[in-house]
């Protein structure tokens, strides 16, 4: 599964939105995610990709596309720039 698909999977599971509405430009507001949803997504991302996402970085991730790029960058830094199972 690609990073994009994995992230979508996490967001759909936690925020309970339709996968069809998720695009690279979807923002947290667009999908009606509250602060607790965001924290849960964050925790799931950290666990799934084995990376740490500091709070200050989260504020910069305005939409799903930016989040995917961020994960790719962090994984590249770790030398494992592939998606997860």
């Amino acid at each position, binding site marked *: 599964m690609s990073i994009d698909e994995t992230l979508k999977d996490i967001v759909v599971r936690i925020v309970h939105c339709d996968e069809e509405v998720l695009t690279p430009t979807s923002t947290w507001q667009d999908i009606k995610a509250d602060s*607790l949803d965001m924290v*849960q997504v964050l*925790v*799931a991302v950290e*666990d799934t990709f084995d990376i740490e996402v500091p709070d200050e970085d989260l504020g910069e991730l305005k939409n799903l596309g930016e989040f995917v790029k961020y994960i790719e960058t962090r994984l590249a830094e770790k030398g494992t720039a592939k998606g997860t199972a």
Partner: protein
Amino acid sequence: MTSLELDGKVSLVTGASRGLGKAHALKLSSLGSKVAVNYVDIEGESNQADANRVVEAIVGQGGEAIAVEADVRDVEAVKAMVGEVVERWGKIDILVNNAGITRDNLLLRMSEEAWDDVIDTNLKGAYLCTKFVLRSMMKQKWGRIINIASISGVMGTAGQGNYSASKGGLIAFTKSIAREMGSLNITVNAIAPGFITTDMTDKLPAERKEAILSLISLQRFGQPEDVAELVAFLASDRADYITGQVIGIDGGI
């Protein structure tokens, strides 16, 4: 074979090598929960032997337990402890924030060190343990956090400005986190024991004990098992709809 109320559950009890924590660990285990018995090894004080005895008692009763060392004031130690328990049993369902110390003195004579030690152990310790355990609870959308506060945190006690502040803080923390985590089916409650017979209360001078007894309607100190019964109840499905509460168990003061 009859199934027990907490079968399949995993509990982490901090400060469980003796006193109240030991009673909580034994009680939760008697109801079927696996139990991680936290203890601390700090300068001049090792509780490992006591923690191992608690584990042996649980295993002797047919339960499952491990001793886990961590100073609850230390973020890395707490992270490692939670990781060890999750690695071993896959999750943590029940957290009992029990670890606590006293460094009593009248405020004018209370050192900054005594203030910091008590606040760090009793309040920061609960914050750190809760923070790292919540990850596991959030994923399963079920969790029980039980904070052992104190009547001192409700009423205040002369000579315990630091301890009372830490327990009052723990009560406010309980109410806040209960609001944060309610939608994830994680309950957070506090217990405010009165005077319970433990090593901590054994240190009180005889006259002070007499004075306290005169205030207690039931005219006796409580036993750790009295508090453990309430912990077990709050950990169970019977307490599904109770969160953000502070429940006194003090014999009527």
